[in-house]
């Protein structure tokens, strides 16, 4: 596991719960108890009403591709082994749009509006990164 060369997410105090949950294969979305907003990415304070009365809801792990871009070159050396990388923005039914990669998918098979589901990849002993993959029929 220690041979992970790519940059790890810079985890912040207010996002720690998100990254703790991915280790248990759960995708959390921050939620404001005062104005009922679902918030992504996690912050210290609600961006809608500035409340700090925040908790978490668990997302269902489903989504649809809003846009994607298959990257073939122009990445740092540490990403080269992953090329081509399918960058994607995925809309979650809970509201937020997130940035991710589509994995377990050929570049020619990805499309806008395609249904996808979360899949967890153990990066290091301490970090599990959520990606998305095509929904298996």
């Amino acid at each position, binding site marked *: 596991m220690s041979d992970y060369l*790519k*940059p*790890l*997410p*810079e*985890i*912040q105090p207010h*996002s720690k719960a998100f990254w703790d949950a991915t280790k248990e294969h759960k995708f959390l979305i921050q939620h404001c108890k005062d104005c009922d907003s679902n918030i992504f*990415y996690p912050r210290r304070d609600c961006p809608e009403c500035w409340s700090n009365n925040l908790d978490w809801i668990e997302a269902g792990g489903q989504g649809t591709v*809003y*846009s*994607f*871009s*298959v*990257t*073939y*070159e*122009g*990445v*740092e*050396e540490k*990403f080269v082994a*992953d090329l081509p*990388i399918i*960058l*994607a*923005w995925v809309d979650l039914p809970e509201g937020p*749009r*997130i*940035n*991710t*990669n589509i994995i377990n998918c050929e*570049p020619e098979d990805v499309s*806008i509006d395609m249904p996808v589901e979360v899949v967890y990849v153990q990066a290091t002993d301490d970090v599990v*990164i959520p990606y998305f993959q095509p929904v298996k029929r």
Partner: protein
Amino acid sequence: MSIAVIGIAEVPTIRDPDRTRWDILLDVCMEAVRDAGIDKDDVHAVISPNPMAQPAMANDMALGKVPEVLGMKGCRDIAIANAGGTSNTNCLRIAKSLIEGGQADFVLIPHTTVQSDIPSEDLINFFATAPLDKQWEYPYGVTFNGSMGLITNRYMHETGATAEQMAAVTVSLRAWGALDPNSIFYGKPVTLEDVLNSRIVSTPLHAKECNLLADGGGAMVVTSHEIAKNFEKAVYQLGHGTRFMSATPFMRKDLFHRKAYRESSTDALAQAGLSINDMDVRQIYGAYPYTQCSALEGYGVCDEGQGAALWAEGRCGPGGDLPCTTMGDATGRGHTGSGVSMAFYLETVRQLRGEADDRQVPNCEHALLTTSGGSVMNTCTTIFGRSPR
């Protein structure tokens, strides 16, 4: 009350590590002051855009080396502005407040950038990590090109713009650049086939639709409308409007910036007492081709989704009836970091002076110029004219 540009200078955009940052800087400062026809000691302030990815040079400029080295004895203060591609816009805003506040008659705004001596791995890292979120984007291999590929793909999906139409934007931008001795692509136009046959970097973007990082520099001298009336070559700022969207592209509701283009231009045009149809040229700094399309849609030059068609019909390129972006944007000129917007301002001044040679738009009286910073976090729209209102 507003400001006017009375002096300009620029060095050609090239890649040459032997041409140093300071050589560029000194050359453009002296040439802009001479072009204005003022004395070096008349410069009351030096306001510089932050040279991105060059921390040593940024420190020199932030901490007052420019007026000291050039012996500008009348200099009252200096400042540096960093807002990525909109750094120069912020320099003009600071200059305006110094001039209107009675602290400066003449302000020098100089830019320098050398990227050819920076290892490409470091540049990729800089342009990946500077504007991107290090928790939610960078670990996924997002690059600047990838980010813009995501937006462009969605733009094409929603508008039905074809790969050929999008490539035509680059053909026109390169056609402008081919006419510009300050472009790295001077004398080097491309065909539709050249663009479409170039390597795919991040779909749907081909290599020729992405930016070549290069070295360059430019400078301008600005003063008040009042003082500018004594300067024959003065070009006047007539209005300015601005809108912010988001730092991070996937957070952006106004993904193609149409609303931001519309609202910022509405404010700027209202101040100028002009309409979009009064503009003889539209200078759009977006650095990626989709912005050249969505800006025209936002400004109301055409309907939503029709921007790419205008470019494909050749209407925005040389000889077209809607000339746009006559300096070629970063795609058609070479990307000089925070210097691209400097080049946009300089080209706009040349057009309004009638000094744009082969690129000259006939009877150019009014110009609209928009700049954007970061990953298109904002749109800053300024109206310039050949005469004050």
